[in-house]
């Protein structure tokens, strides 16, 4: 899985396109993706992964977004990456990824909301908010999974651990690196879903005729479509920039984390613009269960806040800028 990302995109498109859009988060497709090794991209083959790098993983996640699949490839691959220093992983591992767990007041209960697809897995890599990472078997005593879903009906379960915290992962990457990688993969997924939304909308306004001509010939419609494109180009640039920054800053120090925060802020804006504009341009056609648009827009409404809020990213970035001043901001922009 080297640099030929075009091939990677085609591989995923071929697999996913054969599945009806409503089933692109099914167990069956998940097994297929696992079988292809896509859930351990970015982990060395020597450690049991599929090889490839983090950029390959971002391509996988973005491409799944284009095809409206919400399967937790990002989380599976991050769990494998976090585990791989301590133990071997393989494509059959069924491990979820839970970030930023908070303890209840007496420290006896750790609670992590919004864990993707936890109910389907057998174990979970958990980072608590102090940065300790551990591996927890879900059938261990004191571990409970409360099923919840997001707006797109994707599992976002609550993990609750009473008592012991499982096996500490001594070699797990630092919390900041895990957070940055998770947030950037989410931004890449949003970029994909926004592109899928755009493709569907473009096709619709070019085919649908009103007033005796395709909708796209109405200047206000064309301008709205263009504003979606503008938002997409902006988000892709932000994601590329953050990928470059993380490549040069593996442990996600300030430079990497700041670039990821910028991408998260832009992702949130792009998601909102694309969902709103796509629905407007589709008119009533876009609001039915049958028409595929909602498979995209529900994800664009759900995903942005799930891995750190936009507000938090903006405050982090603004705080750095105010603390360090113009020269530091400028160097970060132009380096």
């Amino acid at each position, binding site marked *: 899985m080297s640099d030929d990302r075009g091939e990677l995109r085609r591989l995923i498109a071929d697999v996913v396109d054969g599945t009806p859009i409503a089933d692109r988060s099914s167990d069956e497709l998940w097994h297929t993706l696992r079988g292809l090794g896509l859930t351990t991209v970015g982990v060395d083959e020597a450690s049991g992964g599929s090889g490839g790098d983090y950029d390959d993983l971002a391509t996988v996640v973005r491409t799944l977004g284009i095809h409206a699949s919400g399967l937790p490839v990002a989380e599976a691959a991050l769990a494998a990456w976090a585990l791989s220093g301590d133990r071997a992983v393989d494509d059959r591992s069924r491990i979820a990824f839970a970030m930023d767990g908070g303890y209840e007041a007496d420290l006896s209960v750790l609670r992590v909301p919004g864990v993707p697809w936890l109910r389907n897995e057998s174990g979970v890599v958990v980072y608590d908010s102090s940065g300790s990472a551990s591996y927890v078997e879900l059938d261990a005593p004191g571990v409970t999974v409360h099923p919840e879903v997001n707006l797109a009906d994707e599992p976002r379960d609550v993990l609750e651990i009473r008592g012991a915290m499982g096996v500490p992962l001594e070699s797990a990457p630092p919390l900041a690196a895990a957070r940055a990688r998770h947030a950037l993969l989410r931004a890449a997924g949003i970029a994909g879903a926004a592109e899928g939304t755009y493709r569907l909308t*473009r096709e619709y*306004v*070019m085919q649908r005729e009103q007033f005796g001509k395709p909708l*796209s010939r109405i*200047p206000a419609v*064309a*301008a709205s*479509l*263009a*504003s979606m*494109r*503008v938002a997409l*180009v*902006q988000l892709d*640039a*932000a994601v*590329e*920039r953050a990928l*470059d920054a993380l490549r040069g800053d593996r442990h996600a120090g300030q430079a990497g984390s700041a*670039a990821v*925060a*910028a*991408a998260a*802020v*832009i992702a949130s804006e792009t998601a909102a613009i694309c969902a709103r504009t796509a629905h407007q341009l589709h008119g009533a056609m876009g609001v039915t269960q049958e028409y595929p648009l909602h498979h995209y827009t529900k994800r664009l409404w759900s995903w942005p806040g799930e891995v750190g809020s936009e*507000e938090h*990213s*903006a*405050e*982090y*970035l*603004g*705080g750095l*800028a*105010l603390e360090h*001043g*113009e020269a530091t*901001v*400028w160097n*970060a*922009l*132009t380096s």
Partner: protein
Amino acid sequence: MTIPNSAEIEELRREARDLIGQWRDAARFQPRSDNWMRGFDGDFSRELAKRGLTGLTWPREYGGQGRGQLARLAVNEELLRAGAPVAAHWIGDRQIGPAVMRHGSPELRKEILPGIAAAQFVFCLGMSEPDAGSDLAAVRTMAVPAAGGWRVSGRKIWTTGAHHATHIYLLARTQRGDRKHEGLTEFIVDMDTPGVSVAPIVDLAGEHHFNEVTFSDVFVPEHRLLGTVGGAWRQVTEQLSFERGGPERFLSTYPLFALVLEHAGPEHRAAVGRLVARLATLRRLAWNVAASLDAGAAPIVDAATLKYLGNAFENDVVDFARQTARTGTPALAEACAQALLASPGFTIRGGAADVLLSIIAKQETRP
């Protein structure tokens, strides 16, 4: 993507910073927003030229530096960051030089390019007319064949810096017909040619940058024709897409932004963060556009996107600065007012925001 010759680029950046620092410390310029259009200082431009910081992208045989667009981006973004007065060479360096390189005869290149690179030639743009603004193909200025060249009559308007210029780029009609995108031709005209006259148009800030330029039976020699007769539409749209994708499309109000960073309080963290996120992304887009140009591509959508988003950012910086200025220093309030009075031009010049969206839509809805 990896950055080619990054050591070379960083060396150029340092040279630009050194010169800017010397001039600023000696109070030879005041940092201002929009100074790439409003700050005219021939001495500063010639000093940049002496140090090899102009004409960066065209070949050495024409007085250029034979470097790439990424090198040019590094130098220009430092100049914009500082709010330095660069209007004397900006237009010639940005778009006339490249247009002459692409479409000019070898003689025309030899005649014009070294003068631009040395900042001896100051260019203005004779494009817009009273009845041809966003609809540039509606130009009426006529050039008719004459012995040894052409004779031109007509009026150009919003011609920035015509009162300082030594040369004007001229878009004129050489043929009348039903198809207005055909029959247009480009010329380069000396501003001291008999029959060229310049009248000032004072802007709402009380400053004089715009002019009306009248051509009354002006003779233009044959060798000053740029490209092909009647083929200017393609040439000029290409030139405009170069004009659009540069860092001046989002850094016009950067000097104000830098002041705001000094004055904003912790309650402004999120708002500052959102601006920084957009700024960082815009700069990446400018880098992408420069890299595409270096690779020989024509990044029309990316350049239009950059300008569209960049101008919105410039305006949002002013809006945000106005909020913080209420409790800031007089210097901040003054910088804010200056940028505000310049701001209506941002989303108009070089392609109005609405036109940019239609350009993007046209690219995107091709079957």
